[in-house]
């Protein structure tokens, strides 16, 4: 096991370097740099050249990459071109906000899909199973942003229960916990509903496969109650695919969060990335790409290792 972990970590290093190379060169190959975005129509070749010189964009690309990598290895993601802040401080402000909606969303989605999928498998081919399948298919097919729009239309425009976007009310100088809950409910609901829809079907299939296993029959014949059979014996094994799913789902959760943040104008990593892309704020873009790349690689690694931890039948060598 220990050897396997070390092996996997070593394997992750070239992947991480690859992420930095592709990210860096793609960003810098794009014509129309930050100078163009900053100056707009007032841009003259002299001014562009001056801004390029200030940011070191006139050096050969490979040198720029070297400088950037050197900083990165020292944990320095550089300075934003537009916000007069370091990339780290921007991430430090925005990441917790995104983690809040994605984290709570995933948590709800996990609990929801485990319960829904297990019940569906338990009452397989009943009206409950069919209805739940139809509903999950419906939401699974729904684009995140459209789901968000509909939630705004219903709960914000029509019912006026929740604000339609943002993180706080600008008229309220001391937004408290209540305001935070009100502003995050719809984004979290969008993340959770979209995710449950996909995961419940995995859970259903997995639980379905588990419930016909011999050891479940053994447990039942030994007189173990139905609740214990499902909760203790079957759940532990059928929850495995959902754990790997979480590790692999990170990139798609990131893009999901971007759409949700754009729809709700929720200031998180997605919106930060989106604005940085529009403004050509290279250090911010690259910082986020490197961070998501790292999270994805670590996520896959953890999913792999957790798999072995939960399922003793899997042995790594």
């Amino acid at each position: 096991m220990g050897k396997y972990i070390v092996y996997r970590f070593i394997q992750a290093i070239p992947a991480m370097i690859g992420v930095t190379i592709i990210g860096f060169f793609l960003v810098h190959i794009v014509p129309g740099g930050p100078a163009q975005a900053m100056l707009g129509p007032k841009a003259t070749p002299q001014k562009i050249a001056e801004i390029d010189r200030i940011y070191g964009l006139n050096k050969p690309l490979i040198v720029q990459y070297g400088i950037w990598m050197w900083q990165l290895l020292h944990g320095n993601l550089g300075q934003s071109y537009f916000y007069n802040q370091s990339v780290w401080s921007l991430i430090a402000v925005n990441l917790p906000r995104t983690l809040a909606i994605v984290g709570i969303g995933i948590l709800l989605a996990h609990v929801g899909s485990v319960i829904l999928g297990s019940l569906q498998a338990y009452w397989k081919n009943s009206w409950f199973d069919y209805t739940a399948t139809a509903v999950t298919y419906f939401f699974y097919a729904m684009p995140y942003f459209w789901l968000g729009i509909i939630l705004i239309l219903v709960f914000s425009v029509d019912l006026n229960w929740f604000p339609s976007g943002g993180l706080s009310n600008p008229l309220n100088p001391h937004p408290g916990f209540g305001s935070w809950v009100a502003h995050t409910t719809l984004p979290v609901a969008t993340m959770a509903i979209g995710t449950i829809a996909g995961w419940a079907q995995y859970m259903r299939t997995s639980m379905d496969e588990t419930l016909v296993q011999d050891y479940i029959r053994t447990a039942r014949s030994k007189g173990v109650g139905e609740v214990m059979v499902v909760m203790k014996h079957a759940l532990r094994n059928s929850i495995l695919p959902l754990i790997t799913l979480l590790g692999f789902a990170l990139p798609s959760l990131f893009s999901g969060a971007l759409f949700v943040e754009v729809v709700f104008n929720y200031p998180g990593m997605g919106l930060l990335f989106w604005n940085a892309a529009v403004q050509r704020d290279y250090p911010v873009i690259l910082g986020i790409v490197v961070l998501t790349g790292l999270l994805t690689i670590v996520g896959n690694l953890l999913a792999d290792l957790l798999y072995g931890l939960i399922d003793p039948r899997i042995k790594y060598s």
Partner: protein
Amino acid sequence: MATPEAHLSSPPSLPLVEREGPSREWKTFWSNPLAWIGTILLTLIILFSFVGPVFYPASPYTPHLNAALAPPSAAFPLGTDSLGRNNLSRLMIGGQLSLEVGFAAAFVSMVIGVGYGLVSGFVGGVLDAVLMRVVDVLYSIPSLFFLLFIDSVFKPNAVLLVFVIAMVSWFGVARLVRGEVLSLKRRDYVEAAHALGASNGRIMLRHLLPNVMGVVLVSTTLQVANAILTVAGLSFLGLGLPPPTPNWGQMLSDSMNYMFQNAWWLIYPPGFAILFVELCVNFIGVSLHQAFDPRLRR
């Protein structure tokens, strides 16, 4: 909502005998009501978009400024947009572009993924390790990042969009095919083909390719759904295809501006159009999965 299906389906053990006639798989497929619902509904949507304008020739471009943002009426069954353009005509024409790009992107990503996976799995060794690390790297970069950048370098047009979406969605297929090939290439019939002097290219194309097509078909179907969503999402972010030719994603994102005027006739039709296509494609994909994955066959 990406489909991580690809990571879960383990290599199925395919029958060793050569198949004959319309196979058992297809019979299983057509015995599934979901397959019928999906196919029929998808056909209707395709007819609506491509044949509909013949029967309903109202122009999707002519502005009726005196009837701007009009709710549904006899003259405009689905109302009009902010420029007073016929929303029903726009929905039909918009479907053409969305469907074409979706299907074409799925096809191109399938071709790239199958080719890459076949070579990687078949050749094996160092090449396989390198090719798979490349996939790992590409997989770890958020695909929106690629899309945003490629999209801002070139003026977006339909053909470019097809290739851009294909470029960010072939990794899953490649991994899947490689896994299949790894298990298939040790089979007796591949050994036999080697012994008979078949070239590597022939073994890949004649013996391995037909046997991976089952899984590939499933993942390509789901890829169509993904591609249509991606087109819609990009348009939503303002990166899609330039006007005037409408597409569903763009219509949806435009409609957001009239959310507070409660212009529901602009918000629901393109949304449901995307939703129904997604549903149909997923129904077909799931039915294919059940038919071609022997573990799920009952």
